[in-house]
């Protein structure tokens, strides 16, 4: 573990190399949803799954007073080594949209890197949705799946599972371990089943190449 990741002696450290490849392996994801849809938990699950897979994960919500139904966003950074920056994700490689009606909000896909992927919680197909500025769009009916398997209309687990299946950014087993940190017993079993069901709904690895692309400065 690099010393500066967990605090340490910074005295006389050489400036980090100027190679843009220094950020190789950093993937930035933005998750949009509404208060009450488990937006923050989705982000935390991703970052925790990264940890379970031996990588670095950072997650935080766009902050503000808590309120059901208000549009919210959360940010995730997954990398091979610790990331210290804490700004909001302005140029995500991937977007996860928990509520398709948010697509009407102007700028919701703002900053998406060219070729970046958008995963939308929707019963409709990607062609029907027509997400502006997005080259790759995938939809899954995450809420319906959640109601069916969890008994709750919370789409986050399904979306995160589908995302990981699409990108192979992290193994699904890592997501299951992340879920095990949060849930026990019946709820954990259901969440695990939901992971499988959601992953099965998407074409595995179609976004893998995009996921492996280095972040541009």
């Amino acid at each position, binding site marked *: 573990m690099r010393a*500066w990741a*967990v605090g340490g002696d*910074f005295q006389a450290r050489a400036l980090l190399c100027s190679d843009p490849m220094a950020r190789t392996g950093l993937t930035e994801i933005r998750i949009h949803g509404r208060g009450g849809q488990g937006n923050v938990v989705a982000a935390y699950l991703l970052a925790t799954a990264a*940890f379970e897979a031996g990588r670095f994960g950072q997650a935080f919500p766009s902050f*503000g007073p808590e309120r059901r139904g208000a549009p919210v966003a959360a940010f995730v950074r997954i990398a091979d080594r610790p990331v210290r920056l804490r700004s909001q994700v302005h140029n995500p490689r991937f977007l996860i949209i928990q509520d398709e009606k948010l697509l009407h909000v102007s700028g919701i896909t703002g900053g998406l890197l060219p070729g970046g992927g958008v995963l939308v919680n929707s019963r409709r197909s990607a062609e029907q949705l027509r997400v502006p500025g997005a080259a790759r769009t995938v939809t899954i009916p995450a809420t319906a799946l959640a109601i069916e398997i969890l008994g709750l209309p919370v789409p986050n687990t399904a979306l995160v599972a589908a995302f990981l299946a699409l990108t192979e950014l992290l193994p699904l087993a890592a997501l299951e371990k992340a879920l095990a940190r949060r849930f026990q017993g019946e709820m954990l079993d259901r969440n695990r089943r939901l992971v499988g069901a959601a992953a099965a709904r998407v074409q595995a690895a179609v976004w893998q190449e995009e996921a492996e692309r280095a972040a541009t400065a």
Partner: protein
Amino acid sequence: MQQPLEGSEAIARAVALCRPQVVAAYPITPQTHIVENLARLIADGELECELVSVESEFSAASVALGAAAAGSRAYTASSAQGILLMTEVLYNIAGLRIPLVMTCANRAVGAPVSAWNDHQDSMSVRDAGWIQLYCADNQEAVDTTVTAFRIAEQTELPVMVCVDGFVLTHTLEPLELPTHEQVDRFLPPYRFARALDPRNPISIGTLVSPDFYPEARHAHHQAVLRAQDAILDAEREWRALTGRSAGGLLALEGPADARVGILCLGSVFGTLADAAAQYPSAEPVKLIKLRTFRPFPFDALQQACRGMSDLIVLDRALSIGAGGILGNEVRAALSELPTAPRIYNFAVGLGGRDVAPSLYPQLLEAVKAARPARFAVFDLEPDKLAHQDR
């Protein structure tokens, strides 16, 4: 052993490891998760503690004060409006020389009303006589919290651990919690020499006339200055015990002989550090992560800035009508150097405005133009200003 934790939960667990006997809780965004986590630890039997859910922050600080005076390790946390409401008590605690640790989850102070992060709250009480330590990330928040109890109890001074609200409190990232064994070895049980005890009755908080007052204040001031030693001792021992730095007085990153520097407090450091790699500059730049703000580390700062030609000081708060707070204190400290650097004092991220890595090259532009700024709000968006304010 590392684990992924939300900042608030990590801080709560760090507090719990220190075995406080009394925790006073009053909700205010963005500190609330800390006391909620503590409440859950108590409810699950992981912490034996009296949790007093008070009816305002004024009482939160007062309950903590009463408990500490009565011989129990105590803790509370607050932000923004709550810090200001309890200001009178903060002065009282420090002046009475009562050991206490408090987390300030930094947040902007109204008006205008804001729930977002900046340092106006803790800066507003910098004169109260507390030790003030600023954390750059959640690992530092954990390590500073534990070491704070020891520093407080050794110096008989209260310690305010400042943690950027939301940016740190609500961020999940991997970090390492110390073990029970480590903390128990590092932090002896609470023993306050002047604790209230019927077996040895004393009176605390008497009226002090002009005959004695200046001496009391001098003694307090000296005690806070001397606390630098306790801070460094704690730092050394913590590093020996865990292998980690809690932050010390300040930390440097970059070439030791760099003539350009950027100084900041708190979490914006992380963004700057990564930005320095993302936007390499021809001119070597040294980053100064100030961690101890009170006592103000005059000597360490002067040493770090010796030979510097230009220093950018980033404030996350301001003294309305005068300018930057950190900027002016740094300016004063460095004016004692035979050749002080040119100072560029900017406020960034006020009220939680996002500090993007692209700020870094923009800051260095100001140095290139050799335009020292007495003070300016750096990340203004002029089209949002009324005409006369542009």
